[in-house]
C-alpha cells in the first residue's frame, strides 16, 4: 500500500465514523423535485390567474324550492399566492332578508368566508379546506356554505363562481371582475 492509498483509506474511515457519530441535522440544500408544471391547464396557471382582487358584479342565489334571488350589494374576493381565498359580501337589507329566508347564513347582511383552498383543475373547482370536519350545521349548509365547492369559469377578466347541490343543480352564481 502506498502512502497515498493509506491517506485515502484513513479519510474514508473518518468520513464513515463521522457520518455514524453525528446527529442528523436538517437538510439545508434544496431538493430537486422535477420541473413545476406552469403551462395552461395546470394548477400553477390556475392559481396565477385567480391571484388578486376581484369585485362582485352580480350574485344570484337559487334557494331550493324558491325563486332566484338577485342580491343587491357589494363584494370583494381576494385570492393570494398561498391559495387563501377571502370573500366579503355585504347585501342590502331587502336582499339580506330574502337570502336568510332562503337558507343563506348572512348575519346582519354580511357574508364572510375565508381560508385556504384546494384547486381541482380537471373539475375546475375550488374547495375551502375546513379545519376538522365542519358539519353542515356549523357552516350553515346553505347555498353559499364554505363546504360547497366553487365551480369556476373564466372569461377574460371575469370570474364566475357557482355552487351546486348534491344533484348538480346550481344554487348560486356570482360574477367577479378583476380589480
Amino acid at each position, binding site marked *: 500500500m502506498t502512502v497515498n492509498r493509506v491517506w485515502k483509506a484513513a479519510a474514508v474511515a473518518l468520513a464513515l465514523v463521522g457520518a455514524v457519530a453525528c446527529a442528523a441535522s436538517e437538510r439545508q440544500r434544496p431538493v430537486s423535485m422535477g420541473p413545476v408544471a406552469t403551462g395552461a391547464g395546470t394548477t400553477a396557471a390556475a392559481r396565477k390567474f385567480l391571484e388578486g382582487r376581484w369585485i362582485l358584479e352580480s350574485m344570484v342565489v337559487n334557494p331550493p324550492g324558491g325563486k332566484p334571488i338577485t342580491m343587491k350589494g357589494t363584494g370583494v374576493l381576494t385570492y393570494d399566492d398561498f391559495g387563501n381565498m377571502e370573500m366579503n359580501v355585504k347585501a342590502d*337589507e331587502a336582499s*339580506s*332578508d330574502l337570502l*336568510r*329566508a332562503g337558507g343563506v*347564513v348572512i*348575519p*346582519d*347582511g354580511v357574508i364572510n368566508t375565508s381560508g385556504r383552498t384546494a384547486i381541482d383543475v380537471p373539475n375546475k373547482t375550488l374547495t375551502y379546506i375546513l379545519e376538522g370536519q365542519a358539519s353542515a350545521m356549523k357552516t350553515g349548509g346553505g347555498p353559499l356554505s364554505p363546504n360547497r365547492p366553487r365551480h369556476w369559469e373564466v372569461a377574460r377578466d371575469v370570474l364566475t363562481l357557482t355552487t351546486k347541490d348534491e344533484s348538480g343543480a346550481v344554487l348560486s352564481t356570482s360574477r367577479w371582475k378583476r380589480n
Partner: protein
Amino acid sequence: MPIAMLMIVLLLGVPAWAGAQAASQPEMFTGTAQVKNATGAVSGRLEVRLRRVTPEFDRKAVDTALKEGGYPRFLIAIRTAPEVGQLVLGGGAPFSIRYARERVDATGRRLILVTDKPVYFVGGGRAGADVTARKGFEVAVIEILIDGKGAASGSLAAAARVRPDGDGGAVLDDFAEQLITITNIARKPS
C-alpha cells in the same frame, strides 16, 4: 338575590298578534330608566333606535326555536336574527336589538324588543354579589306601551331569560327583583 319571575306573555306565537303590525318606520324613543330598591333609586337616560320590526321569517324562526328548542335554541335564533335597532343606556355603547314586534289595536300600540345580550345586572355589581348568579340571563327585554292619546310607558328587564310557558307564550325571568320602569318616554321618527 331573589329572581323575579314575571309572567309576561311575549308575542311569541300568540295568534292575536298576527296581522297587527304597523308599517315599519325608523323611529327613536328616549326616556328615563329608573330602578328602585329599599335604600334608594338610580336613573339614567335610555334611548331606543328602532329601524324596523323583525321580518316575518326571522320572527317565526325565533318563535319556533323557543317552542321547540327552549331557551338554548331561542338564544341561537335571537343572535342569528338581523339587528333591527339599538338600545343605549346612559350614553354607553349600543346593544343590538334583534327582535322587535309590535301590536297596534284600538287601545294603542305595544312594542316588545329583545337584545342579544343583557344590558345591566341590577344589584349584580354590588360588593359581595354572587357573579355566578348572572349566568343564563343573556338577553334584555323592553316593553313600550303607547295609548290612544300618545302617552307612553315602558319597562325593561335588563338581564333576563325566557322560556316557553307551554301555552304558546313565554315566561320571562328577570335577574332583578323588579323591572326597571321607563318614564318620560318621547318618540320621534328618525
